């Protein structure tokens, strides 16, 4: 009897030590499909020898709420996504493990500097960038040809860009130049180009003369016949208008590629960088990114670090890039031959990738300090909407937004 018990105990121990399961948590939907395949084809084969197995779990619905709940209940996975938009309050909470212990500075240096900085708080790296996106200008070649207007290109300034849009909109009935959205996630890229920053040295948000210049230009697009308000065209984003050929250009990231593949597979479109501010001769942009971060309460931190290494390995990022699913966060992959292939989607990916480099100009992560991003952006979005729809003057709208921001940013 004793013998059997000992054998049993050993067998259980053996089973337990044979395989360490590292749980991963992230967005549901498409991400589940992509990450499960990545884990199956790249990550698990690489870690099989070490007895580590990763399992991905996608969360439907409100990911942020689900993650915070899981962290409080102690059921969060060992590694999870953190969206840059709400990363800082979470990193500051102490529930995320700093990664400096597990990765050497050399290992961290291979990642795009801008991206890594976005996940660094008080000198600690709290996440490795999974992938990223920036904004770029997509243009419909047919519409520009039909209007006999040259395509937008990377030497365009706001003025020449607006002029081209005006000419397309004037030449073709039913087509807008750009469908303009009242959203800081698009407008902000232009504001950054002027030298304006969301927070000044004192940590306040000041809507200064630079901001005003970008604001005036952006809201004048509709008034001056270079664009139409997206809601007036029955769309919620610039890509929706673009896919339906209601607008000649869109300002979106690489995510528009998959959308267009379904919605308008034959569209002849090109991609170029965001136009330059005519005064500063600079461009601006946002970086949208998600990190892989480690649970501070994880029981398998060493194993999780190994899985993290495999998830962000060159092989894994190449696998994702070659399927056109996302852009790699490793700087070395900028020279990947995949970017140099011909084709509209490769051009899109290439230009969006360039947006994060020095060509991209003033590139800021899509986060707003320790504040809730949605809350911070609201006054600016409302100001944009009020001016575009003619409800307020620029002066009035900026003054109101400033008053509101003074209340929010303390």
């Amino acid at each position: 009897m004793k013998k059997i018990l000992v054998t049993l105990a050993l067998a259980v121990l053996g089973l337990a030590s044979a395989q360490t399961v590292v749980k991963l948590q992230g967005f549901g939907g498409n991400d589940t499909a992509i990450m499960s395949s990545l884990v199956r084809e790249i990550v698990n084969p690489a870690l099989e020898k070490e007895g580590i197995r990763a399992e991905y779990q996608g969360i439907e619905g409100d990911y942020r709420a689900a993650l915070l709940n899981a962290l409080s209940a102690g059921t969060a996975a060992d590694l999870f996504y953190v969206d840059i938009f709400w990363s800082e309050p979470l990193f500051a909470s102490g529930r995320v493990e700093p990664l400096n212990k597990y990765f050497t500075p050399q290992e961290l240096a291979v990642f795009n500097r801008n991206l890594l900085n976005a996940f660094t708080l008080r000198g600690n790296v709290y996440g490795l960038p999974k992938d990223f996106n920036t904004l770029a200008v997509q243009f419909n070649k047919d519409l520009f040809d039909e209007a006999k207007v040259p395509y937008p290109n990377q030497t365009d300034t706001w003025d020449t860009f607006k002029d081209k849009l005006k000419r397309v909109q004037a030449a073709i009935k039913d087509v807008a130049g750009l469908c303009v959205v009242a959203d800081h996630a698009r407008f902000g890229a232009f504001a950054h180009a002027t030298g304006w920053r969301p927070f000044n040295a004192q940590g306040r948000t000041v809507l200064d003369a630079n901001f005003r210049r970008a604001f005036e230009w952006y809201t004048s697009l509709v008034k001056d016949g270079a664009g139409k308000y997206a809601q007036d065209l029955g769309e919620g984003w610039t890509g929706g208008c673009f896919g339906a050929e209601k607008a000649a250009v869109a300002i979106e990231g690489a995510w528009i590629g998959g959308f267009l593949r379904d919605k308008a597979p034959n569209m002849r479109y090109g991609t170029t960088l965001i136009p330059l501010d005519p005064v500063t001769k600079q461009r601006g942009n946002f970086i949208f990114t998600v990190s892989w971060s480690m649970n501070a309460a994880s029981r398998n931190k060493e194993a999780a670090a190994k899985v993290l290494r495999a998830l962000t390995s060159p092989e894994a990022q190449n696998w994702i890039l070659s399927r056109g699913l996302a852009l790699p966060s490793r700087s070395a992959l900028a020279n990947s031959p995949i970017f140099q292939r011909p084709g509209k989607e490769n051009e899109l990916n290439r230009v969006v990738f360039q947006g994060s480099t020095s060509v991209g100009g003033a590139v800021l992560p899509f986060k707003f300090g320790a504040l809730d991003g949605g809350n911070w952006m609201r006054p600016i979005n409302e100001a944009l909407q009020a001016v575009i729809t003619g409800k307020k003057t620029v002066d009035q709208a900026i003054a109101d937004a400033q008053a509101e921001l003074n209340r929010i940013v303390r």
Partner: protein
Amino acid sequence: MATQAVRPMRKPDERHLARQRWARAGWVYGTMLALAVFFIGPFYVAFLGSLKDNPLEWPFRYSFPQTQPKNWAAAWRLGQLGAGNPWTGGFAPGAEVPFQISYFVEEGQEPEPPTVTVPTRRAGAGLGAIFDEVQAAPYAQVSEVQEVSRRPAVVGGQPGQIVTYAFTIRYPRGDATASLPTVPRLPLDIEAPRGQRYYAATLDPNRLERRGRVASWDSITPGFFGYVFRNYVRVFNEARDPNTGASFFLRWTANSFFVSLAVVLTTLLFASLGGYALARMYLPGKNYLFAFIVFTMTVPGQATFISNYLVLRDLGLLGSLWGMIVWSAVGAGAVFIMKQFFESIPREIEEAALIDGATPVTTFFRIILPMATPALGALTILTFQGMWNEFFKAAVVLSGQQASYTLPLGLSFFRSAYGVAGDWGLMLASAFLSMIPIIILFVVFQRYFVEGVSTSALKG
């Protein structure tokens, strides 16, 4: 004079009464019709939307390619020609698919034949994006495009001519040793020179692109279902588990049935036993117990779900369908309904059984329970419907385990996988499919449903 003055008084009175009768009937029927339109209308519009290539199109059209019998017949025939499968189509070795397309060419312009290509199509978003679909492009051979006819016509007030072109797409068998795959679909793009307007084709295209220059088909050998119910077919074909390749939707349907039926069984068992004990058995403090049960009905599920979640976590039931079953096994409301029902059964019946020597268990199972069919039927339908539509508990217990999702959670999965890309057709289709079992249940059990609600005394 006086009689003359009285008579006209009577006549309008009768007419007034008749008018009032008609008005009353008009109001009743009008209200019923309005209610019917109010409730059925959205379903009808959503159903039409689920058939469309672009469910979000505005203005909304009630007549579109998928509703036209001409296309039904064409889709059936082309599916037959493509793979010998008139229902879901395909493109098999040996297939020979003739196709025609007509353009309107304005007067003074010389018609030019269009360019025909079989493109490589990969899904851009949703689950389809991660599967490598077998493409028709490497196997399809397009014959030369030939002009078939020209006839003068006036389209939109402009004089000109309608020119028809024909071509054939073949799938050569090659030599006998090569094993060639049957391709699920045969996409097609036909690009016309600028100025030629698409007029008609053997099968109406799924979309016109590039300002009408390119007519584009997802498949020209779709079969009847593949064309008319394309989004419904996609629900089954496209949404598959990336690890096993099994259809998610079938799995979710099975899961929903399993959970709903299991909970119906546990509810019927526990609620009838509990209800009977509270109604008839001698139990000290029974009324307090009953008051407590009724009190628990007033506590919202959201208030207790965290503790339930933690209990399920410690039991290791998170992510498993059993977790949902344990959580929903019986509700206070069900016990309440059964208790009220049992109290309406005359005591004399049980006393008669007692005199005949029946034990309480025999009395319950052989006498009382068969009499409780209406209440049990009502409970069945309410519980089943409640579990079938249960989203909150499923979201809490099953989060992240796609293979063990129930249908409502699956629909939310579709929303995050397809809705973000504006692909609402598949979502509408899956929502309609998930409704079917509940509709069948209502049709079958509606007698019990009505009886259960209205019953207060014994029958027969």
